């Protein structure tokens, strides 16, 4: 059944149509790659789903109850179960790996619950830290980690949030080939339980993900299907792969 249904959204910035009547659905669980050239509207699409940008028209329906996410705050959407991984690793550099993870662990986000709630999440912390290979670095400040480790920490924070939908922005950027393989494996593993949307323009990486691909162009869906299917589409070759 569909977890996220984007229905006819459009948004313009100063007359420029960043998203033009975009519609598609994502199942749960599913791994989906969204590709497209620069300016195709990939980032704007993520901004709309996460509540950062408000579309001019259209609906974003979520979950079993078809909740409309439009008009909800970023934090409410995040609590509903949408997690976002940024292109540049964004962790809180001034705080330890442990603090970063503890902040992300799913739980009551009300200020008073945060202040008074002394929950024991040591077990969960250990579990996540082990999964992302940072167990030995729990006490280290996030700012001292390597680029790759920061990426993993951010992924760990996403896991800790226990989202139903993960939006991942260019996960392979700045990673070594070895780290890319690890990342592909992780994303595939996650996609057995969650809905995962990967926004990427590295075609090799997408091919390795081996999943359904949505090609965006000028703010709308140009083609959708398997990697082989979309790469043979003449329109796709024309606007994207041909370059």
């Amino acid at each position: 059944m569909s977890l996220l249904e984007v229905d006819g959204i459009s948004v313009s910035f100063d007359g420029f149509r960043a998203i033009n009547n975009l519609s598609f659905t994502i199942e749960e669980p599913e791994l989906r790659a969204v590709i497209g050239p620069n300016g195709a509207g990939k980032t704007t699409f993520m901004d709309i789903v996460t509540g950062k940008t408000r579309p001019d028209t259209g609906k974003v329906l979520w979950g079993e109850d078809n909740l409309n996410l439009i008009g909800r705050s970023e934090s409410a959407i995040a609590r509903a179960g949408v997690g976002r991984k940024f292109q540049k690793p964004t962790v809180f550099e001034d705080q330890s790996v442990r603090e970063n993870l503890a902040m992300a662990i799913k739980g009551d986000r009300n200020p008073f619950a945060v202040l008074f709630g002394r929950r024991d999440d040591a077990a969960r912390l250990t579990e996540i830290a082990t999964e992302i290979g940072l167990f030995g670095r729990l006490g280290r400040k996030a700012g001292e980690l390597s680029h790759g480790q920061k990426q993993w920490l951010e992924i760990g924070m996403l896991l800790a949030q226990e989202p139903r939908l993960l939006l991942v922005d260019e996960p392979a950027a700045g990673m070594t080939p070895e780290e890319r393989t690890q990342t592909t494996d992780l994303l595939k593993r996650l996609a057995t339980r969650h809905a995962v949307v990967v926004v990427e323009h590295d075609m090799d990486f997408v091919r390795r993900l081996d999943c359904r691909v949505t090609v965006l162009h000028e703010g709308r869906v140009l083609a959708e299907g398997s990697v082989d299917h979309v790469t043979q589409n003449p329109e796709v070759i024309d606007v994207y792969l041909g370059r």
Partner: protein
Amino acid sequence: MADATLTGPATVPPIRRTSTMIFLAALAVFVLLVTLLADAGMISTSTVKLLGKTLCLALAAVAMDVVWGYTGILSLGHMAFFGLGGYAIGMWLMWARTEAIVLADMAARTLPPTPSELQDAIGSQIFGVVGTSDIPMIWTFAHSLPLQLAMVVLVPGLLALVFGWLAFRSRVAGVYLSILTQAMTLALSLYLFQNDSGLRGNNGLSGLQNIPGFETTSQATISIAFFWGSALALGLGYLLFAWVVSGRMGSVLRAVRDDEARVRFLGYHVESFKLFAFTLTAIVTGIAGALYYPQAGIINPNEIAPVASIYLAVWVAIGGRGRLYGAAIGAIVVSLLSNWFTSGGAPDIDLGIYEIRWTEWWLVLLGVSFICVTLFAPQGLGGLFDLLSARRRSGRRASYGPDTGAKRPEEGAE
């Protein structure tokens, strides 16, 4: 050490936890010392009052550090809450004392005064200076100490809650928020300057050093009592904020300061956290003000002029943002120095062609120090403690080697 590497070091660096203990111990020693010196007559009552007031300012600075240093909201209006706390307690002090004086005057009469006669007499005593004897609405609870004590908390708290809600909800941040808070304190001070504000206009409230019910007690005893009260408030306030900024709340507040948007995507409603920090610190600042003004003896609208809040920010910056003891030290050192320079304590420097008079040049010196701290020592005075604790730790500062398996400098002390 093996255990520590397994689970990683504790979340809170030990310096943070021990710093609270050291601060409280230092405060206790200071209180004891001042009490003994005052008892022996070695320091004057006015010095005790000055030190007591300084502790209140330190409490306000600690609160300012939580809202600015930890949460990243540069509020340039926190002294408005300080003043409101002072006005709230001042109203009771003035009312109760005037009532006692009026009753004593009327005691000679054969018929006891009716309640309305009493009200009129108190009214003309208090509001005669602004040309009226009507008692304004806001003095409704002034006869009751418990109600006015509630006002000390409620008035700054509610103002901060409403102001903060409006500002944070519209996502006003950074320098725009600072300007807005300046406007708030300026508007409040201008309003209070008016005679019909109900708080005696530019005369303010005076005679606050006379505590009703303790007419026969000497000012020396009262000053020591308020000094203790201020120290207790500073100690408790410090503990409260040390608790707030530890653990997950502190983590979220610092995260809001560093990357607000990212915190939203983690599912935290950033505005609520800002509002929490803003309101809680406003309340504590109000309490600090309520302890300050009975020691100062007088409060007028000048006290909440925008420049007062800027001083508060300067103290915190010089003391060191983001560490509570830094803010307290900054407030204590700078406000005492300021007092020394402006009261003619510092010897003037005669340069032959020009004489530097510190009463005038102190502000220049303060301004230059502020700029220097901001540019060259952003850790402020509190940063000096890092130098001390760094020297005590093992000297290794560089990595042990380029290999991934090599120890980091932090791991070398085993």
